[in-house]
């Protein structure tokens, strides 16, 4: 597989960028020679704003150039939610392409550029364990390290489905790196602003129409102030366009449902996650809240939330969270809400019997 082909399939590869050295940004954003690349870039952005479909260019070169234009446009818009969505789009583009290649050397080269060390022997893939754990946060429980064949510093995948699993790990790394690569663009090229003015204006319009529409959520009667810090933190992260883990989503949905949110209101919050997919999210929310399926899932208790790594007790230094009897987010919510009505007794409960926070050292 030559570098030109690779540059279209895996446009993030630094080792193919030499092919495009010396191209002028002015030409890129104005010359008819690159109109296919511009169409591709524009359609990717618009698609992720909910308008139209992606128009793929026929040549690898244009795919490569379009990809990098998208990065520049995203840097210019500086919109976390949109960047996250486009990251998901290219993540899937990566996944499709990676699964289609058979050349071992190419696989290794692509993985190495994603900072994932891989060894391949026959049908067996070995991933460096530390590269592995850096890329499983958003994947399901099946990917937890204790369910893997770990040996000598490598997680080993062999047999059916290995290739797909390895690809999942790589695509997660791609996703993170894509966002970093957008955020690390420090100066927006003037040529783009100058020659791509009209398109940028249309993109902004579409962005304002779509994304701003669902960025705010009202809570009505429900007392948001009384939410425990862990729940607030998850909401905050979602509002910031972060692609939070499955466990975080699960915790949030079960909690909100329990305190009286409707399925629709819950969905409103999830509109902010970058990989938002209305049908999928609706299905999952209904599943978790018991509207579909037999099981009604209950809100995880504090110790479980802690195991998920979602407990932010230390970060917020919340005295209520430090109570010995504080074992469940719903207890927190109920207590806080009630004590707001009658401020008297709360003071005595707070503070005096507070478990002393252990300091930063130990035996």
């Amino acid at each position, binding site marked *: 597989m030559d570098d030109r082909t690779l540059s279209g399939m895996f446009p993030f590869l630094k080792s193919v960028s030499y092919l495009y050295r010396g191209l002028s940004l002015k030409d890129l954003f104005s010359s008819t020679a690159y109109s296919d690349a511009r169409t591709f870039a524009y359609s990717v952005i618009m698609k992720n704003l909910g308008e139209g479909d992606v128009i793929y260019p026929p040549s690898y070169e244009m795919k490569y150039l379009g990809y990098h234009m998208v990065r520049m446009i995203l840097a210019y818009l500086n919109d976390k939610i949109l960047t996250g969505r486009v990251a998901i789009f290219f993540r899937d583009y990566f996944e499709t392409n990676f699964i289609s290649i058979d050349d071992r050397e190419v696989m290794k080269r692509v993985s190495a550029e994603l900072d994932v060390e891989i060894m391949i022997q026959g049908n067996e893939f070995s991933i460096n364990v530390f590269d592995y754990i850096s890329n499983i946060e958003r994947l399901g429980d099946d990917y937890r390290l*204790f369910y893997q064949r*770990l040996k000598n510093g490598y997680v080993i995948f062999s047999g059916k489905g290995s290739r797909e699993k390895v690809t999942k790990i790589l695509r997660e790394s791609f996703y993170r790196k894509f966002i970093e690569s957008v955020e690390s663009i420090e100066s927006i090229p003037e040529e783009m602003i100058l020659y791509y003015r009209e398109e940028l204006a249309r993109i902004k319009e579409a962005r304002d129409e779509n994304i701003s529409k669902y960025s705010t959520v009202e809570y009505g009667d429900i007392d948001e102030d009384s939410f425990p810090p862990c729940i607030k933190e998850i909401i905050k992260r979602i509002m910031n366009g972060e692609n939070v883990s499955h466990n975080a989503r699960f915790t949030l949905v079960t909690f909100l449902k329990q305190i009286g949110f409707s399925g629709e209101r819950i969905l409103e919050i999830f509109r902010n996650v970058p990989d938002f997919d209305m049908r999928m999210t609706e299905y999952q929310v209904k599943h978790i809240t018991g509207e579909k399926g037999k099981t009604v899932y209950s809100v995880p208790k504090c110790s479980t939330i802690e195991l998920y*790594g979602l407990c932010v007790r230390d970060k917020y230094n919340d005295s209520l969270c430090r109570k010995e009897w504080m074992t469940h987010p719903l207890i927190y919510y109920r207590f806080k809400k009630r004590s707001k009505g009658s401020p008297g007794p709360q003071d005595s409960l707070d503070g005096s019997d507070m478990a002393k926070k252990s300091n930063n050292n130990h035996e």
Partner: protein
Amino acid sequence: MPNSLQFVQRKFQEYYVKNKIQLPPRFAQREYGFMFFDREGMVRHLGFSSENEIIDFLIKNLPAHAYYSSAYYRDPKAQRMDDKDWMGADLIFDLDADHMVSGNFTYEEMLSIVKKEAKKLIYEFLLEDFGFNKKDLSIFFSGGRGYHIHVRNNKIYQLDSDERREIVSYITASNMNFDSFIKEQLMKGKIFNENEGGWYGKFSREIRHVAILLRELHDSENYREIESVLKDAGIKNRKRFMDLLFITKKVFREGSYVSEKRIIDILADMDDPKRINYLGDEENIVTFFQLIKHFVSIDLVGETDEPVTTDVHRLIRLPGSLHGKTGFRVTPVTLDEFDSFEPLKDAVVKEFFINEIKANVKKDFSIRVLDQDFRFKVGEDIMPEGIALFGILRGFVEL
């Protein structure tokens, strides 16, 4: 100043004047923190740029406890954590008797339990599974109730809290569902390959170990122990289950008859991954797996204090410093010496055992140090300075 405090500080001073401390790599990038005998709280956010500076500080200030950060920073002295500019952190494992030993044990017994756990952590997990090199590991006796293992390796410095937590979860198998292992093996009708990585191989190897153990207990007629083991594992119909294990079966290999063996011997000696089926129906196999699961959870699951490993700003005891609750030295131990390392000999400051001192014992206590048993009853007594130091720091003795 009360006599006891004066004495303690004099001993600490003598120690720091005569002994070196072992500075961590990149020591100038580390934050330092100290606790003192005569005031509350911790003084932290300190930084040092040379070895002499640290020694000088120790001699002048005689801290009860000395710590440095597992993390290294561009500006370790910055007062706010956010301003320090975190560059990375060693990977730390803390094994402490407080977290793993319950029941009535002497200090010595506790330390030996923790040491066993530390060995398991090092060999089974850090070297074998995670593939660290021996040279990546530094082991320290904490001077108190446990061991610290510091891992330094290019792959780990940048790991964040969640990634470190994943390592701990693997080691402690916390929230791991062993039943899925059982299901998978039942479905395939065979056990995992013993050489398989991760918990799969561990589970499979344990089958052999448990079979050998039960056979030994049975053949030495230690029925009481068998009963207690099976009961702990939650096995019902224990008599029927044991009888089953000792039934003789015809063994076939590739379809042809080989010999007759007891099921327990088949499980203990044969390499056939399908040998589990000699147990008969699924119910028996499940019962046997239940027993294995029990043994895995007590024998194989690793111990380590999670918050220590996941905290990427942790302060940890400074090697070579004295522990302010025992007077013992935070002592480096090489892996090769680890087996023969005896904390109550090798971490004891021998100079403190040259002279004796008269002291007032407030509470009965005993301790075995430097191969000698010391036992004191309330009242005045003469004892080595090192014992007085230990007694004062533990609150058993006054001068």
